[in-house]
């Protein structure tokens, strides 16, 4: 029950993009087409889930028992960087079209604050193993939801008459703001 709550709250109430402001770069960069948004969302969800598992193990089996918490930032970032490399190789092997579609953004997952943020927030909140994994999946789904919704809106925006200075990032951020406001409505639904 508690796990379900964490899951739903990671998707809707404390959405990674709209509440924690994590993963803004891909959120703005890869949200022009629904297809690529979906693939980006899936890639992030996948990496997030693995990161949740691996970072928990490192934190609880290596860092905390040895009182090495101050190495958290260095180890997490290195682990994430290597994980992303692996995922990249994996996707290139099994699905070249997908690899083509995600292009430059896959390596960028390394410096995607959402992944690092996930590892840090889970460590900060002292979640146990099961909770961390659920939190990881939920956050990934939340990210996917936000980026896909955004892509849907932006496909419409393409054919709308947007004032010239607002084109691109400007209007995208304002749309994100309205989405954040809508998501605010989900607060308090977790009893």
């Amino acid at each position, binding site marked *: 029950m508690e796990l379900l709550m964490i899951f739903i709250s990671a998707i809707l109430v404390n959405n990674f993009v709209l509440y924690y402001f994590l993963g803004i770069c891909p959120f703005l960069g890869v949200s022009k087409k629904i297809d690529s948004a979906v693939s980006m969302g899936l890639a992030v969800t996948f990496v997030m889930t693995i990161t949740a598992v691996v970072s928990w193990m490192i934190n609880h089996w290596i860092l905390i028992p040895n009182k090495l918490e*101050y190495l958290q930032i260095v180890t997490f970032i290195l682990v994430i960087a290597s994980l992303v490399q692996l995922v990249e190789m994996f996707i290139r092997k099994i699905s070249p079209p997908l690899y083509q579609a995600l292009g430059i953004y896959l390596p960028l997952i390394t410096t995607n604050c959402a992944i690092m943020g996930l590892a840090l927030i889970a460590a900060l909140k002292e979640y146990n193993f099961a909770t961390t994994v659920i939190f990881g999946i939920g956050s990934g789904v939340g990210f996917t939801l936000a980026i896909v919704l955004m892509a849907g809106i932006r496909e419409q925006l393409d054919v709308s008459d947007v004032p010239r200075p607002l084109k691109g990032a400007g209007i995208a951020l304002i749309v994100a703001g309205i989405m954040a406001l809508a998501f605010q409505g989900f*607060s*308090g639904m977790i009893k």
Partner: protein
Amino acid sequence: MNVTARMIFVLTTVGLISGALLATVGMLTQERIDLNKQREIEAAILQVVPGTQSSQTVFEQDGITVYAGSDGQGNLLGYAVLASGTGFQDIITLMFGTNPDLSVISKLTILDQKETPGLGANITSRDMFLKYWDNKDSVNPLTLHKPAVRTAGELGPGEINTITGATISSEKVLQIVNESLNAVKNLNNEGKLEKEDKHGR
């Protein structure tokens, strides 16, 4: 030197230097960081169990920590209960004080919250919320007085005022307090709150 060897050498050196630096920084700051945490808890205990000269942890489990506050002579003044739970937006961490037999809540303080600024975040405001928690009869679970009243005198002995526009946040705080108080009462009945170990501090 060939490239592979050089790569390994450079990475190891960078890693070692960074590790050494971090270990130094880690050691230099650890003590102060622990001290900050301890100070924060102590300040909160003093706030909710006024007059506390020394405090010790008597119970710590399942997200609830109970501290016993005593005066200079070692007489028990009351308990300070540290608990947390889900709020409107995120986790709320709070501490409340009780008298020794847990029949009165003396004071409440909020340690950590991320409620909506300007609405739910008012649970940290003494004037709007916390003052209504002073000296409440806690024999029975506390209840929320809705709609909000203007003065503490209009509230019953076990009633808490609601924040206008932040009913859910008020309810969540009440829920955390009632649940943890209930848990602490059970502990007390089982005799687990006896000051078993004196080595606290």
